[in-house]
């Protein structure tokens, strides 16, 4: 029963590899790259002089910007929470007719960039502007960020807890508030965090609506006023706001724990009948779809066909689409690759220091795209003699850094699917390390890696702010070309670019939504 020829195999001299040094080194390098923008920002601020920065921060303009930014963030986040939670509950827990169709319609607006939603509304009516316009547009553009995690959490949560609550004499509404929302608490907070960060970072939508926030002002200072110290001072405040949001979310999340006792049987409980509320709820979903999906898409179509004054160049659309795909694709590959060592380290070799390393990379969330772009471009100009400024490489690195948290989330989830025991089982069956990687680890991990890639790719396609600053001269992406036409009020020419962006982003995000939909079923019994 001995392996044939086994006696010929030499004993492998023992190497004592206690720690995965290579992976550790790669992770530290990645974390360092991610920290660069914030470090640059601090160097810049230091160079401009503390007194100078102080003077630039403590002026009335900052107060106005602060008031505008904060009230918008609070109001939009609240609106999105209400819409997102309501829609998620109706789709997941009630007998809403046509749930599957609504589930798609509710999510698709996520694929429409904020600046396109803004363009769609503002180009139709001059009344859509300022604070109210910004609340309307941003709410419609980002509410799926609450809807998606809440739906997932409601699906994963144990419906028996709700039954227990009802049996304990707590009514339906109070059960919803105390148990259902309690279960989804982490998901709600996570979604709200993303929305708040997005509003802090948004530029295009507010520029179109003529609403002044930190980001629009920084952009103006940098590109029109050429005032680096002023842009830098305002950036510091913006980063501080983002850090506050992040810290607040962590603090709020830390108070509650989700607990699951034992392996849980996933079973369907009866959906709550909507009863007389059915018609109003249906109308609500229809209205939401028209406002979030119908108006932006319809408006783009209207401008494209109603105002064909200028000749449309199919070539420029194709060339812009090509550049968009190249930059986004390269960035997606780069950030997925960067996320791998950190995810592997965190999942396979857990330890406090390593977990801290992984968490530190989430600090990137606090740096809006504009700040990352400014920091990188400033640094290349000041310290690298302009080498790399407005180069393709710099743009791709900026994307990869900006969307790294997205990649890490996806990669980490997929690496978790392939625990070390699979490797061991395969090796005991006579497979060498490379064969194990090829036959076991990769097939399990690749769908998740692909999802992470798609996520970053989509974000790259819809990115405007950093692109405007870092785009190589003479090159246009879909977003920047759209922006150029839109700025010239050539709506008819801008519209096709917006539609291509939507088409490029909507199809994969729908596919990916379906994939994530199937994910829990696959791992159901494996856990």
């Amino acid at each position: 029963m001995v392996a044939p020829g086994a006696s010929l195999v030499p004993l492998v001299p023992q190497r004592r590899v206690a720690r995965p040094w290579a992976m550790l080194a790669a992770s530290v390098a990645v974390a360092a790259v991610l920290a660069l923008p914030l470090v640059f920002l601090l160097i810049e601020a230091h160079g401009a002089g503390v007194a100078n920065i102080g003077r630039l921060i403590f002026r009335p303009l900052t107060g106005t910007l602060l008031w505008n930014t904060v009230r918008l963030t609070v109001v939009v986040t609240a609106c999105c929470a209400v819409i997102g939670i309501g829609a998620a509950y109706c789709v997941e827990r009630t007998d809403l007719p046509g749930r599957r169709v609504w589930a798609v319609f509710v999510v698709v607006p996520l694929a429409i960039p904020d600046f396109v939603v803004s363009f769609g509304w503002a180009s139709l009516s001059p009344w859509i502007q300022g604070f109210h316009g910004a609340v309307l547009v941003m709410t419609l553009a980002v509410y799926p960020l609450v809807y998606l995690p809440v739906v997932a959490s409601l699906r994963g949560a144990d419906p028996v807890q709700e039954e227990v609550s009802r049996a304990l004499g707590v009514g339906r509404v109070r059960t919803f508030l105390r148990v259902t929302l309690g279960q989804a608490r982490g998901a709600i907070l996570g979604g709200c965090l993303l929305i708040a960060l997005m509003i802090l970072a948004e530029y295009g939508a507010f520029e179109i609506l003529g609403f002044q926030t930190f980001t629009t002002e920084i952009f103006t200072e940098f590109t029109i006023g050429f005032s680096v110290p002023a842009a830098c001072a305002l950036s510091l405040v913006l980063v501080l706001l983002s850090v506050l949001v992040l810290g607040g979310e962590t603090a709020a999340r830390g108070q509650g724990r989700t607990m699951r006792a034992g392996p849980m049987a996933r079973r369907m409980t009866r959906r709550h009948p909507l009863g007389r509320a059915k018609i109003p709820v249906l109308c609500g979903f229809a209205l939401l779809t028209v406002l979030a999906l119908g108006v932006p898409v319809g408006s783009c179509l209207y401008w494209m066909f109603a105002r064909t004054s200028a000749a449309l160049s199919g070539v420029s659309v194709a060339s812009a689409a090509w550049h968009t795909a190249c930059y986004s694709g390269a960035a997606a590959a780069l950030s997925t690759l960067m996320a791998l060592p950190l995810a592997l380290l965190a999942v396979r070799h857990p330890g406090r220091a390593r977990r801290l390393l992984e968490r530190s990379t989430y600090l990137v969330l606090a740096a809006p795209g504009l700040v990352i772009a400014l920091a990188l471009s400033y640094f290349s100009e000041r310290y690298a003699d302009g080498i790399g400024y407005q180069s393709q490489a710099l743009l791709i690195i900026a994307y990869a850094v900006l969307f790294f948290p997205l990649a890490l989330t996806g990669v980490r989830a997929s690496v978790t699917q392939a625990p070390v025991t699979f490797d061991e089982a395969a090796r005991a069956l006579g497979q060498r390390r490379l064969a194990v990687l090829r036959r076991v680890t990769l097939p399990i991990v690749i769908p998740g890696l692909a999802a992470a890639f798609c996520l970053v790719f989509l974000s790259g396609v819809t990115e405007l702010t950093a692109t405007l600053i870092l785009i190589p001269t003479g090159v246009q992406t879909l977003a920047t070309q759209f922006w150029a036409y839109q700025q010239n009020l050539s709506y008819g020419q801008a519209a096709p670019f917006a539609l291509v962006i939507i088409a490029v982003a909507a199809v994969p995000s729908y596919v990916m939504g379906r994939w994530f939909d199937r994910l829990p079923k696959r791992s159901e019994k494996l856990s």
Partner: protein
Amino acid sequence: MTELCVKGLHKVFGSEPVLKGVDLTVPSGTLAAVLGPSGSGKTTLLRVIAGFERADQGTVTLDGRVVDDGRCYLPPEQRKIGYVPQEGSLFPHLTVAKNIGFGLPRNERRGRQVTELLDMIGMTGLGHRYPHQLSGGQQQRVALARALAVKPTLVLLDEPFSSLDASLRASVRADVRAVLREAGATALLVTHDQDEALSLAGEVAIMQSGQIGQCDTPQDLYTRPADPALAHFLGDANLIKGVLNGTSVRTFLGDLTLDHTADRGSGPVDVLTLIRPEQVRLRKCNGNGHAGKAGLTGRVVDHEYYGHDAVVRIRPDVTEDDLTLVARVMGAASYPAGASVGLSVEGPVMAWPVN
């Protein structure tokens, strides 16, 4: 021919010694079990034998061939070992048939062997299913078939039944034993479940804090443990004081016969005597509280009824200490608390000198 031989195995994690000189031999074609509480190092032992961990000192010999001697080591994929991990760890992206054929050369993966193994584990025709479509017991059986497909020298089972329901455990256990016997495989099972080890294995090694305390057949382990601690670890035990003189032990329960394998000592010595609950015989007393024979009596303290048998705790009427005897009685006889019973001990006993 000896299939597995472990000698003086040491393993340290950080500064904590986990294995402190383990010696273990598993003869060809037998199923042995390593039984120990969690943290005793039994899983580490298994992982060193499989090659997932490397020995710090000592040797592991497989089929006469040193695979790890603390300096050089053979990687796991070249050891021809069948490894059945705790949760089965079936590859989730492969069907049952592909899981079973995983370790085979490419041209044999769809062959007759996979079908035969499916038949052997009683899952004929289920080869196209995915692991998540199987019950826990089925997953465990597929994991075993996957390990057996490569015709291993040795099958290692790491707590293979602990993730199963109690009701499933017995039947899967029987299945596994039948499959292993049919395959004629040498196997080593690691478990913390006494029933599992005693009922499955031909030989059981008890592992305590990084060392093998005793390695014997289940019967010998139970009736002739090496020391009082081992007696206590395995099953229920009554340990009472006595004086050993030649082949007889004098206790308050009377003069008991010493087991023929036990050390007789020289002259009278104070000993600790092991009396298993099955050895304690109870007789119902008549109304006036006296046993029929002029024997020892006691009062029932409590009574746990299990259907096939019952455990009765008795406070003997004459003892120096505050002592309770545990007795196991078969059948439907009922001993209500407070009842008076006659006591006697049956069969030879083990005894160890007290120092």
